């Protein structure tokens, strides 16, 4: 595995003793490293890798910090998390989440025979007794709406790609396209929750939180798991997202995603107030630390040590995050690759560029949300906008990672929460149509560390309605992602309410071997 020069991941614990703290305290910490109870009171933690290494034993911290209802089961008995479970192909992941449900038929799931079936009703035999959403449930007809766009073959693989995705088309040989992804949820809230957290109801940790919990950080001045929201295009139908999607559920809240924002402070409250310079901040922290040190000596509360480290890490973030968000040193080639959109903070293109920068700096998991894919009507009006906003950026990110040697150990995932119907919602005309939610099949792709690229996996029937070969459930999808990161999805568990909870839930899931490199 290649070590990227900028990546701070040295495969060993970062050394927190380099923190700019008084030397006597440093000595004390060195002693404490061997003591098991450092932060052991009511589940206190500092968060992120540095504190874990303060404990000298991440596993211990994994136990003491866990607020959740640890049953009488002694979870220490399970021993260390022993992660990764096997050599990971990917050390980090970037998840491009297309919220709303992209229409697979218009993008990557090419169905040439549909053209002849324009405005014909989809056969009952194909629909089966499926429960529809309330939105099309009352429709008298279910007329087939073939894609408005032409498809062409690209790459050595000769993969069919819609004219809407001219740039993605250039990297098809690097992609693992999964046409047989399918879900159990038909409405946004449960479906998006299921994709992100493995459960339709809220309250479960998301993929990123599980990764943070299981793998910890690769750097000591940026969060392990960061979330980027793309700017809204008000012409698109922006289904809501919420912090439940990047929450930590019953895991400690330190594992929740931290938002990297495009407006105002890149991390909430990061900037010093007007009139407070770096020097003033340092002075202020020196005073605070000195007094906290006195408190520590007087009361002997270990949490006071945690407080000192907490403030020092905040201070370091005040430098490292602006450096992350500062694009002024990006060369012209970057802009040539990502396009002009990337200069505008908050665009999807900008976020993709930030995702690459975070990958370089050892952020373990980056999730980029792009909302707006909920094309119930006016597909020909909205879909080109969505593709224009995302197509080049996806291409640029993958290409950029590849050029920098990061793609080998970075897993990139592109997915929404479900697909869309082949039949038109509302009226159908040669110029326009709408598509309702469709859980039975949708197309996703992955690339990078761990997956077999240049393949198309799974097949749908000629209506892009049912999966006919190699179905990939959401559980399988998540199990496969974890596998690429060196995690056995059955072993990354956390005892909560008496159960060994895991991302893939109680129903058996399997790693999709056909997707693996």
């Amino acid at each position, binding site marked *: 595995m290649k070590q990227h020069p900028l990546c701070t991941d040295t495969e060993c614990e970062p050394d927190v003793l380099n923190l700019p703290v008084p030397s006597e305290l440093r000595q004390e910490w060195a002693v404490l490293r061997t003591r098991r109870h450092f932060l052991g009171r*009511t589940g*206190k*933690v500092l*968060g992120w890798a540095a504190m874990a290494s303060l404990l000298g034993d991440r596993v211990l911290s994994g136990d003491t910090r866990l*607020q959740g*209802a*640890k*049953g*009488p*089961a*002694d979870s220490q008995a399970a021993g260390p998390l022993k992660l990764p479970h096997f050599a990971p192909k990917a050390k980090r992941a970037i998840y491009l989440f297309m919220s709303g449900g992209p229409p697979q038929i218009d993008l990557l799931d090419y169905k040439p025979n549909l053209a002849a079936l324009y405005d014909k009703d989809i056969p*009952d035999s194909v629909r089966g*007794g499926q*429960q529809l*959403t*309330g*939105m099309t*449930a009352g429709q008298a*007809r279910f007329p087939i709406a073939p894609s408005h766009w032409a498809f062409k073959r690209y790459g050595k693989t000769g993969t069919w790609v819609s004219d809407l995705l001219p740039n993605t088309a250039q990297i098809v040989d690097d992609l693992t396209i999964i046409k047989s992804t399918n879900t159990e949820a038909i*409405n946004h*809230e449960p479906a998006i929750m299921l994709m992100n957290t493995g459960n339709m109801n*809220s309250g479960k940790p998301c993929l990123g939180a599980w990764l943070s919990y299981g793998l910890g950080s690769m750097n000591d001045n940026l969060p392990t798991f960061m979330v980027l*929201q793309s700017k809204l295009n008000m012409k698109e139908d922006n289904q*809501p*997202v*919420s*912090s439940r999607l990047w929450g930590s559920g019953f895991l400690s*809240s*330190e594992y929740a995603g931290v938002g990297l*924002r495009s*407006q*105002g402070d890149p991390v*909430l*409250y*990061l900037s*010093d*107030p007007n*009139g*407070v310079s770096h*020097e*003033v901040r340092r*002075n*202020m922290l020196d005073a*605070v630390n000195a*007094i906290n040190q006195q408190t520590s000596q007087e*009361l*002997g509360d270990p*949490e006071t040590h945690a407080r000192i480290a907490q*403030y020092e890490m905040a201070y370091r*973030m005040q430098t490292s995050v602006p450096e992350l968000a500062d694009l002024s040193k990006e060369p012209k080639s970057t802009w040539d690759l990502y396009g002009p959109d990337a200069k505008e903070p908050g665009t999807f293109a900008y976020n993709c560029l930030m995702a690459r920068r975070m990958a370089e700096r050892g952020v373990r998991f980056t999730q980029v949300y792009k909302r707006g894919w909920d094309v119930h*009507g006016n*597909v020909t009006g909205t879909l080109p906008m969505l593709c224009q906003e995302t197509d080049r950026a996806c291409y640029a990110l993958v290409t950029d990672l590849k050029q920098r040697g990061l793609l080998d150990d970075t897993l990139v995932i592109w997915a929404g929460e479900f697909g869309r119907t082949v039949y*038109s*919602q*509302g009226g159908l*005309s040669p110029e*326009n149509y709408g598509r309702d939610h469709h859980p039975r099949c949708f197309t996703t792709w992955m690339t990078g560390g761990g997956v077999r690229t240049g393949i198309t996996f799974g097949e749908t029937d000629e209506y892009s309605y049912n999966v006919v070969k190699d179905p990939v459930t959401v559980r399988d999808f998540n199990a496969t992602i974890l596998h690429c990161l060196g995690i056995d999805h059955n072993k990354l568990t956390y005892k909560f309410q*008496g*159960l*060994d909870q895991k991302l893939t839930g109680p129903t058996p899931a399997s790693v999709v071997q056909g997707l693996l490199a």
Partner: protein
Amino acid sequence: MVKICPNRLGPNRIVQYKPRQPALVIGSICAGLLLSAAVGCHTGQSTGAIGHNTQHLDFNQDVQPILASNCFSCHGPDPEMRKAGLRLDLEESAFRKRPGHPDAIVPGHPDQSELIKRIESKDPHHLMPQSPQGEAKPMKPADIAVLKEWIKEGAVYRPHWAFDKPIRPALPAVAQNDNWTKNPIDDFILARLKKAGMHPSPEASKEVMIRRVTLDLTGLLPTPGEVRAFLKDPSPDAYEHLVDRLLAKPVYGEERARHWLDYARYADTYGIHLDNSRDIWPYRDYVIRSFNSNKPFDQFTIEQIAGDLLPAKNIDPLIASGYVRLGASSNEGGAIPEELRANIARERAEAYGATFMGLTVGCAVCHDHKYDPTSQKDFYALTAFFNNIDEKPFNGDRPVWTPVARIPKAANQEAYDRVVTKRSELAGQLASLRSQERVLISRWLASRQHLAQPVPTDKLDLRLRLDEGGGEILKNSAPHAQQASFTIGKFKPQWGETTWLWPDFRMDASTHIALGQTGDYEGNEAFSSGGWFMVRSAPNYTLDNATGALLSKMDTNQHNRGWDLSVEKGIVSVELVNEAPKGLKVPKTVAVPKPIVKKEGFEYPTPVDLTPKDLAPNKPPEKKSSPKKPEAKKEGAKTGEPKAPAPKPAEDTTPWVGIKVSATEPLPVDGHWRHIFFTYDGSGTASGVKIYVDGAPVGVTVVMNKLAQKTIRTQAPMQLGWRYPDADPARETRYQDIRLYGRALTPEEAKRLPFEDYAAEVISKPADKWSRDEWHAVSDFYFNNVDQSSIALQEQIQQLNTKLGKLSEAGDLTLVAWEKPSIPYANILTRGVYSARADRVEANTPHFLPALPSGEAHNRLALAKWTVSGDNPLTARVTVNRMWNEIFGAGLVETTEDFGIMGQRPSHPELLDWLAVEFRESGWDVKHMYKLMVMSATYRQSAKSTPEQLTADPKNLLLAHGPRFRMDAETLRDIALESSGLLVNTIGGPSAKTYQPANIWEQVSHNASDTLHYKQEHGDALYRRSMYSYWKRMAIMPDMDAFDAPMRDAACTRRQRTDTPLQALVTMNDVQWVEAARALAERVIREAGTNPQQRLQLMSELLLSHDPPAPMAAVLENSLAQMQKHYAADPKAAQELVGVGEKKRNESIPPAELAAWTMVASEMLNLDETVTK
């Protein structure tokens, strides 16, 4: 002294638990355990399994946790997961012989017990326990040793500790001349410490004490004046007086309410999809009032669970019932009503389970609980209590999701209360009448007077009861049926969401029910048809989409020949057609009744004066800065056409040859069941058509009268919900008891049809054969139509309802619970899937807990009373444990939300029980309990910890020193505001929108959400206590979020307590905190004179309640000097810093000076000591 309940020291009280005496020695294994086990709960078990070999193991404390975590998932309560037929959680099944299997447990003989052989096996295939994937997960040697010892001692099982009713234990013997203990709490704590070879710590200083207790009881800091007064008071009662004063302050109620809002899952938005705002803040204020008036906890509980069912003297119990409806709810356009309803009932049962029972009942949604005895049936029986509220399962994205109550303005309150009291009296009389239903109805039947008369079945051609509850076949129970049954088409209906006469039937998607040639009448033949309908019961229901054919024998392929009963924007019509244009459109020249937008016609508590504005979904506020208005488009509205024009069909110019009669007024928009029926006399003219709603004739307009003896017969089959073949669906409509008569029913018959006919059918059977539903139907008929006292009472109540509506005009609205008259039921859902309905179960409490009193209705009121009944083993324990958690930072049972088998064992079981009994016997006196806790010597200890204590008991569960932990999110912000003098402490009112960084809400919200844009308020709203901060579930206030405040999607009975760098960023940089630092600086400059030492002293007094110790003062003075130098040299920076925040600064202070002091204040605000209790 603290008031203690009189019988607390009764010498002969039974001690429920064996003294937690050391139990056994397991050779060298124990030595390794000594450290953790000695302090208890470190590993969550074996608190007593150490020491001398004088006592037996305690099953609950020592053994069950090991069995539970290692064995129960395959050998526990859930039969689906059970392997080898072995069940270890129950004594009788553990010892049961299993043919072909060796005995799992042979009491007294670990060597012969298969259980021990398996856990010690060297063969990985044989070794237990195993993961579901079949991987062996060997147990710890210490645990194996405990199991062996337990079997050796006879393998004695005992019931789970938390399900036994707590009995007040005797106080443990502590040293005779011990002068440390101050109340019984201390006896238990001291005894336990001694057993662990530890000692309590000395009392904290008076400065520490006043700060600690003031924070705990009020969530605010003591003022320097209060501190000084306390320090000066030498009396031995000084501390108790202080506590009494604090308990009497209004801020006490706020602090307790702040915790309760987490338990009750209070929030200002619905939490799902649009996440729109809703009106329920009056509930929050009710909670504050209740704590301040020290409302007994049993009453507080009953009011919240079932306030709407209580005889009330004012509106408070009704407001309290909003508790039931606090959970998240949806209005997503495509959502399925049955699924939403199941989810809502489930959410409420889970919240109730967590807060009142301390059980994770939700684990039984899909299957029997894996560890606890909660069966799936128990769970659904519990949901049933919450499944009978008169509400739609979707919230309409409105701030008012009926039922709601309007709170009278102060001027009308007295009059309102008088009417409520009177109403309660009458409702009580009515209820007591109804409680005698068996006697009264038997008497009525025996009298044979005014018995319910059936409608003769003469020429009844079709009767679809639609009570099948599932399956493929609908039975036609009409005596003259042409066809005895009909097969449902490919697309299935939804069964059984809302019970009317029986669990119902809903047309779904493209459900097709073809009824053959039933109803093939000619235009000169008389006929009548109709039934019970709930029209359009789906999200975003409005009059506009209450449209479609309900019953139809009409062929759209033949110019709509035939007849039907339909609705159009809520207006019921009957059509007899020879031919007519598509959609039965009438020419514009013809007078058609225009739908009048009717108010929602609810009774008390929902006011009758809800305006269309009240009822309209909220719209997103426009943001001035955004260049374009968002094209707000709701998903529910999206069935319309795409923007590009669809091909327009040619206009249908077929002339009208037929009859069309329409009701003059639309049906109310309330989602209630309505009996809709028409009769036709065969005259061939419109005057021969009559329409009845709920048995009463309604006014009609003749729209068309042009049949002229032409035929209306067609070969198309009669259908439910569509005109043949698939036109004009009556979407999302529920059906029940559909009938078709080949004659015109008389008005008297039509009147009897909805209620009386059914009652008559039931009473034709002997009463002992009636089902509960049938009893209910007869009872309803009797009390609404026969029993004169009941009829009179109902009329009077109706008049009072109208009065209440008037008296509450223009008041604030709040969501409340309101019970339907039906019987609370739920269906067990196989694997939790809403459509997989299994057995129907009546509301009931879990089988392993005390039963509800016999003879009482199983409704929410019964549940509420049961919750606080003397026999309930859980509520008091769970509640005192949460109080303990609030005050001491960790519960006696650490898992405050789980007292089940997998929950932690109590660190001090006897103390927990003592407190629980004390609580109950004190009359559920909440203030008494907090007072007991803060008066204890345990609480008053110094928080200073020694390395020895840290080593022996890192979590301080044995309380060898006082509590010390980082304060909650709200408290931190509150003390910053308070110390700086910014706090505006008015109690109650709508939630406040304080400072928030830009683009928090926009990032997550739907375009059409009314919480898309955050509109910060100004002035006082910025400085109110944090408990009033607006709580948007999808994005809670980021400063609260950083400090582990929960989203309140679900009940949270204890918060996480993390320390992350993001928190330091809040308290250093958030404008609220910078402004507070500046205001604090101004305050000390203003109040403490010019001497820096005095200013620092005041700052320290304000925040820490003590003088700054010399080393601290030295650091601060040094820092001040640096800051002064810096800002003197950089006036611009100084100006900028002191300009942060909206509060105008004190212009008389030079900016450089103020800036320097602002930074010193910020230092003080960020100290570990400041942010820590």
